[in-house]
């Protein structure tokens, strides 16, 4: 089974926080979920590009 964690960026929002990514990864690892892949999605806004992060965890 997979679990997906989306850390949002986008129009009017902040980019994802790396420290938060670390906290979530450690928390999920403690619950038995392994981080198998990380993807970044780029949403253009008027002034800049805001990135969202997608982390995929797999059980066991």
């Amino acid at each position, binding site marked *: *089974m*997979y*679990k*997906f*964690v*989306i*850390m*949002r960026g*986008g*129009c*009017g*929002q*902040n980019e*994802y926080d790396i420290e*938060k990514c670390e906290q*979530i990864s450690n928390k999920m690892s403690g619950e038995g979920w392994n*981080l*198998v*892949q*990380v*993807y*970044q*999605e*780029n*949403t*253009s*806004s*008027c002034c800049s590009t805001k990135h*969202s*992060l*997608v982390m*995929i965890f797999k059980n066991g």
Partner: protein
Amino acid sequence: MGEKLKIENIPTSGFSKGSHHPTCPRHHNHLIWYNNRAYCLGCTCMYSGVVIGFLSLIIFFLKYEVNIKHYIICSFALLIPTIIQPWLQIKSFKILSRLCLGISLSLVSSSFYFMHWYFNHNFFDILIYMSSYSILGYSLYMLRKIKFNDPCVNCPEGVYPLCNWNLKNLKTSDVGCEIASAIEVSNGKSDILIID
């Protein structure tokens, strides 16, 4: 030693340029449609407000006698719809609030010129004004983050970029295909956690 993970880019989101949001029906409150193209409601209205504000300033200052108190009060009063908007998620009101926000921003960004050269105020007065405005502006920004109306929450199609609306885009590349496969392995009941 664990294997290093490389962050890969998810392929094109499918947003048309200027839309900044998925163009699915759930996001209708965040979009303005013109000529079959979607545009971000917030950005379009806000920047339109900025342009209207600058043009209005030129007309007002050329034709009328402008009072400094009215100038300052106006710039703050135009933020009232933005303060109310998180609790009033109606599209027409959102358009109004973003327009007013844009006009207010044009007043503030022009304040250095007008307050110093036109109203003959010193730099300290300008600093107080702009600092007060910045504090209020930052508070409104934080309020928006707390009260952000996320259309993807409780959406039966999933959460962007892992939703059914974007699935066809995910499948167009090798990178996206892996995600799409992971979603399909979860039998469509993807366990998705959103962190803002």
